[in-house]
Structures are given as structure tokens and as C-alpha cells.
């Protein structure tokens, strides 16, 4: 019985590590292929500066609001 148990443990270890490595190897290969296909066929316009667009007019109004807020904030103290 002991031998069997040990044998079972060894089986699990060998096949287990084998499968883990094989599966992750397949995943490395699959991922590399996938990335290559996507990068080649669907190039992204640009790494896209954080898309929060800020037109100049908005900016001016914003700055006004914030300035007002800060002024008020300072007055209150």
C-alpha cells in the first residue's frame, strides 16, 4: 500500500508538472501568435494619450471655475 501511495504521488507530480508546463507553453505560443496577428492586422491608431479630451474653450472655463473656487476657499479660511 505504501508503495502504491508513493507511486500515486509520483504519478501526480510528474504528469501534473508536465501538464502545467505543456498547457502554459501552449498558452505562450497561442498568446504570441494572437498578439502578432492582432498587432499586424489591427494596428491601434496611437497608444492614445489618455482620451480625456480637453478643448481649449473648455479649459478656459474650467480654469475660471477652479480659480473662483480656490479664491472662495481662501477667503473662507
Amino acid at each position, binding site marked *: 500500500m505504501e508503495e502504491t501511495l508513493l507511486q*500515486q*504521488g509520483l504519478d501526480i507530480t510528474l504528469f501534473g508538472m508536465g501538464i502545467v508546463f505543456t498547457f*502554459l507553453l501552449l498558452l505562450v505560443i497561442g498568446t504570441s501568435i494572437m498578439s502578432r496577428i492582432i498587432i499586424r492586422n489591427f494596428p491601434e491608431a496611437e497608444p492614445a494619450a489618455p482620451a480625456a479630451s480637453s478643448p481649449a474653450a473648455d479649459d478656459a472655463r474650467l480654469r475660471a471655475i477652479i480659480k473662483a473656487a480656490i479664491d472662495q476657499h481662501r477667503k473662507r479660511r
Partner: protein
Amino acid sequence: MDNLLNLWLASGAYKMASGQFIMILVGLGLLFLAIRKNFEPLLLVPIGFGGILANIPGANLALSAAETALVSGDPEILRQMAQLLGTAAGDSLYALKEALGNAPAAVQARAAELATDAGFNNGMLYNFYNVAIASGVAPLVIFMGVGAMTDFGPLLANPRTLFLGAAAQFGIFATVLGAVGLSAAGIMDFSIADAAAIGIIGGADGPTAIYVSSLLAPDLLGAIAVAAYSYMALVPLIQPPIMRALTTPEERRIEMVQLRHVSKREKITFPLLILILVALFLPDAAPLLGMFCFGNLMRECGVVARLSDTAQNALINITTIFLGLSVGSKLAADKFLDPKTLGILALGIIAFAIGTATGVLMAKLLNVFSSHKVNPLIGSAGVSAVPMAARVSNKLGLEANPQNFLLMHAMGPNVAGVIGSAVAAGVMITMVRAMTG
């Protein structure tokens, strides 16, 4: 006046067995570690509290109706149960519980009906355990939520780090060997199913550990979950000495090139790629990896933000509460206060140590074959323990070289470790079932 006596007999002080007393202290200890030492509090607070509840003498919160009937000591019920279970009339309570646990499903259903007719109910924690863990749903839902919180970007930018996540799983299998070794040496009495469930502690991933032990060794679930979460919290103590011992200062100073930008399309496709590989090659990892990939797809696809948000918040929180209390139900004294628990605690820390070591060594091996050098400190992150292990890599990297920011690089092996241990879990469940079924 009989009622006063009844109440006294029903009161805890009278019945408090020393085992339950010790387990209540253990529960308080877990709460202390969680609250004061910040040991994985999201899980250890409910687990510790559930453990205390499970050990309140006379409350029977962790018992089924049939077990409660046995514990009640009512002679008429005991007689009927003994008859149903086919045990000798004078058998001990322990023998009856044993017989009930091993009885075929049909007999257990009859025992439950018998207890119900006699006015006994399932305990609260017993119900929680059945719904949340025995059904498998709670660990899977948490895995889905973890998937919805996981960013595979760093892994996709550097897929080689998947090998680090693979190597670190050797901790799991070394522990399996250790457990069967202890049994073969006659020191412990672990079955092959026990050994596999204990090994998974080395996966450093709570829901995976709970899922595997609920299937392979439910009686050890309490100790395994406590070990898994405690050692995950101890990662900043366990890993650094091993990492320092296996690396030279020069290796620790290696700076890694900045990760490339990963596109949305790659992130959407990746969980589907895993899913397809699982479907082709590893159906037994389908529940765990399937739910994980589903969560991640909800996160990345961008069209189901409200589902992803719920999976990351309300749903995972609700599930965590009941999962924790349910795990606590397996901290009942008769299950936890067993020499096996000591074995589990000892083997668990060995699992973490070996996984850390093999992760680091694999990183060094990769450097032998590749010109893009990998800082071996990120190898240890392959054990999972997200994001603690990655932070440890980063900390040691900064110690060796203040310009060396490894955090994002270490996130790759870190999430790879989650995939790796889910794969290992699937393999072990299949193999153990084939061996014992």
C-alpha cells in the same frame, strides 16, 4: 423546575468541551491576526468568526439535522438511527456519526427525514456550507470576480513570464510528494486525495484551494483554507530570505525594459484563447478557468460594464461573507484538532517555500537562453498570492537598485500563477478521481 434544569443542561458552560474551548481561542486568534496584523482580513474575519460560531457548545450550528439528532442523545432517535444505519445498538456516538457520513445518499436522505420529523433542523453554518461550498458555487463566483479584477496586460506584454507561473507550481507537487512521504513513513495518515488537497495550498490561491479541498478532502478544508490564507499573508516574511539566498546582488539589480502597450483587442481575445485551450486540452480545469476567463472577458469587453462592476463588488462581497462563514464551519473541534492539521500547516509552508524557489530558479534558467534578461526576483511572484508576491518582488528590487521598479513586471508571473494553479487543480482532481473512483 425541570425547565431550569433543561436550560442549564442546554447552556454552553456545561457542555463546553475542552476542544471547543481551544477552537474558540483559535478563532479569536485568527480574528486578532486579521484585524491587528492585517492577515487577509476579508477572508480571515469571516473564517475566524465562523470558527467560533461552529464551536459554541450545544448550538450545533455546523451540524446537519441528522447529526444534531445524534448529538442530542435522545435514546429513541439513537435507536432508530442505529437501525437505519445498520450499526449495533450500543455503538458510540462517534461510530454513529462515522456511519452516517459514510452511508449511501439514500440512507442519508432517510436519516434527514427522520431527524426532521423529530423536530431537528440543520444548523445555520451547515446550510451555508452546503449552499456556498459543497455546491462549488462560492469559490467559482469568487474566481469570476477575481477574473473581473485581473489585468492581463503585463502578462500579454511579456508572455514568457507564464513559465515563471508554471515553475512556481512545483511547490504544489513537492508538497503532494511530502504528504505521501509522511504517510509512507507512517508519521501521518494522508490518503492520495488528502495529499492533493494539501498540495494545492502551494497554489497560494484561496478559492482554488477551497474548491479542490471541497471536492477531494472536505474534512481538511478548514485547516487547508486557514493555512492558505495565513501563508498568503505571510508572503512578505516567507519569500525574501529564499529570494536572497538564490540570487546574486547583480541579478537582483537587473533592470527590465518597459512593457509594451497592449491593445484592447489582445485583452479581449486572451480569456477566449485560454478558454479554447481548456476546451481542447484540459476539460477538468473548465469550471475554475472558465469562470475566471468569464470574469475577465466581462471586464475587458467593455460592453457589460454593469455586470463586471457587480461581479467585482456586490456579488464577490456577498459570496465572500458566506464563503468565510462556511469555511469556519469546518473549524469544528473534532475536525480541526487533529494531528493532520499540524501536518497541513507544516507542509503548507514548505509548499510556499518551494514554489518561491522554483519560480526564482526558472527565471534564472530563462536568462540562460534569452538575451532579454529577466530579473529573477519576479520569479517568486509566480506562486500567485496576488498582489502581495508582486509587491515583495518590487521591494527587493528597489533594495538592490533604487531605480528598479519591478511591480508591473512581477504582475505577469503573478497572474500566470493563478492560471498555473488552476491548471494544477484540474489535473489533480482528474487524476485523484481516476485513482480512487
